[in-house]
């Protein structure tokens, strides 16, 4: 990518078109992801309806505090991401890097908390197929709750990791001065993806952690 006057890619007439196309593409991609996670959440809710009592008892062992902390971390990281985009629009180059770095840090923090949570889950013997132990009061389908818990949070973590990678890539471009008020569409697009990953957590959190606690 040359440092001289940036130009839109061959197939585009101007930066405006390139930017719009990029955003539309990300929205369409997010739509597919909604259906991907949606399929999982739908299946989860079917079983939750079918086995309400067992899921409620199993769900009480999910680490509510850690889940809530993670929700706060992600929400904050969405804010820092948006601030990075604002900085690009206002041509404050160092601010872009600062906010992106903070977003990455918060992302890693989320993964750290999640990793710790998995360690405690392992110690509590709730990992299906690995060391799951039926507790008193757990019905047969309780293991099913934990299967969904690990699949859902695991796939979410993978998406978040990809997001962190994307933000790191954005930092690399930002360092080279690629984002100007004329064209900062890649930041917006990554921002959209990041907000989406955040949104997914906002759905998973009540589904998995707030079960049976009312």
């Amino acid at each position, binding site marked *: 990518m040359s440092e001289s006057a940036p130009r839109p890619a061959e197939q585009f007439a101007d930066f405006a078109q390139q930017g719009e196309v990029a955003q539309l593409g990300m929205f369409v991609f997010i739509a597919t992801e909604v259906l991907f996670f949606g*399929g*999982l959440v739908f299946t989860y809710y079917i079983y939750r309806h079918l086995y309400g009592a067992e899921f409620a008892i199993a769900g009480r062992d999910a680490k509510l505090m850690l889940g809530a902390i993670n929700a706060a971390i992600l929400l904050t990281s969405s804010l820092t991401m948006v601030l990075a985009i604002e900085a690009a629009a206002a041509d404050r180059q160092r601010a872009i890097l600062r906010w992106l770095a903070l977003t990455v840090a918060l992302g890693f923090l989320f993964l750290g908390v999640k990793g710790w949570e998995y360690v405690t889950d392992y110690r509590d013997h709730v990992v299906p197929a690995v060391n799951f132990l039926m507790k008193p009061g757990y019905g047969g389908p309780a293991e099913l709750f934990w299967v969904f818990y690990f699949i859902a949070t695991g796939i979410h973590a993978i998406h978040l990791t990809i997001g962190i990678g994307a933000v790191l890539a954005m930092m690399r471009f930002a360092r080279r001065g690629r984002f100007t008020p004329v064209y900062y569409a890649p930041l917006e697009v990554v921002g959209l993806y990041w907000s989406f990953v955040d949104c997914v957590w906002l759905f998973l959190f009540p589904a998995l952690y707030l079960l049976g606690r009312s």
Partner: protein
Amino acid sequence: MTTLTADLPASYLTKEQTIASWLLTTDHKRIALLYFASITAFFFIGGFAATLIRLHLVNPAGTLLQPDMYNRMFTMHGIVMVWFFLIPSIPNTLGNFLVPLMIGAKDLAFPRINLASWYVFNLAGLFVLYFLFMGGVDTGWTFYTPLSTHYANGYVVAAAVAVFINGFSSIMTGLNFVVTIHRMRAPGMVWMRLPLFIWAIYATSAVMLLATPVLAMTLFLVGVERTAGVGIFDPALGGDPLLFQHMFWFYSHPAVYIMILPAMGVVSELIACFARKPIFGYAGMTYALMAIAVIGFFVWGHHMFTAGISIYSAVVFSLMSFVVAVPSAIKTFNWTVTLHKGRITFDAPMLYALGFVGLFTIGGVTGLIVATVALDIHLQDTYFVVAHFHYIMVGGTVSAYFGGLHYWWPKITGRLYSEMLARFAALLTFLGFNLTFFPQFILGYLGMPRRYYAYPPEWQVWHVLSSAGASILAVAYVLPLFYLGWSLFRGERAGANPWRATGLEWRTSSPPPAHNFARAPLVTSAPYAYNPEDGSAIAQDGAHV
């Protein structure tokens, strides 16, 4: 390679000839050819399985193949043909090549994603080859649980991974098309001037994008269940096998529309050109395409009429299945009536297109029969269903694919093929196809179930007829390889518009230059501005052709 292009003017084919320039290309036209190579290979793999199946079924005792091998053959046939041939066939070859050309763009919105999608497709294909050579899968392409998760002893996870990865390729393709069609049309190319092929690709892409992720999740859960031994769909551990079916069919029914909608788009292009008449009811045709795409999401339960769903849901799904047939019927009538007062020639593409209309009609009315719940109780899981979907997918989609391949061959390669051989192949296809699959309707009502490697001797006559037809069909499908391949070396040079068609793709050279158009087109005319009264036509950029 040099002999193929030595006497062609500068074009996307001649631009650079290194292997790297092909394998790292971002030119949608080259990517279309890369896909063509891959899916042709898979077509022959799936076809090989079909050949073995039909050979085996000539004998009622079923001795050619061992039972397990037979089961693996029909599974392989289904998986390869559905995901590695039919779904990508028209969109990834003809669609990739034509979408930017038809809308007057220089390329797709995301050329690198386009190239990546081909690599992803081939990565999935590697998993297919892996499970094929390691010993196969024998669950049927439908992976029903708990057979696939706990009882099958083939490479189920590898197969699930292959299809999962293939899904990414589908999604990337659909995403590219949707964004391109929305944002990269040439000036003047408003929505209601788009060729019906573009509308069809658009509808197909919408379905691909919304349905494929659900399949991905479903197969992922199957893989987890099989690997980790947990009970998501296993009743012994609290799971529900019917939930798998609901989720699987929620994708797989729209998938059949992914397979047929692009074919419908191709047929509209062909019939308009060779009847030299605008398609009757253009607006209705666009609504019909979108209606099929939308309503197609609400009929999946008709695959489960005997599976144990409630009477109420069965009745609702039956009604929706009838409703989704209405737009298809409208399209059939519109194509047929387009011929009225046209100026019709019977070139090979037109023969394929008319064959499509006939075979699709037969497939469609038999679809109504199986949509009738009371009849489906008897017909579900019999050869009647097999015949029905082959009429649509093979009689329909494959005919349209071959028709489109012939029609756009001059544009893609700059060469003309042997018209006589092509017409012969088209007629042979129609005859061979009917002989192969019509007897299967009879077998189905008689009560022959699907996926049987042996059957009572009194049904042998139908199987022999079917296998005889299959051998004719095989010739019809292999023949084009020869004369199309031959045309690359010795075919007459094609001009820019050998068919005098009106699409923007015909307003540039054959083959097109790397960036499609010397000057960005300005669209002033509706599509299909053919005038049958005097045979004249106006291309979409206003030029007389």
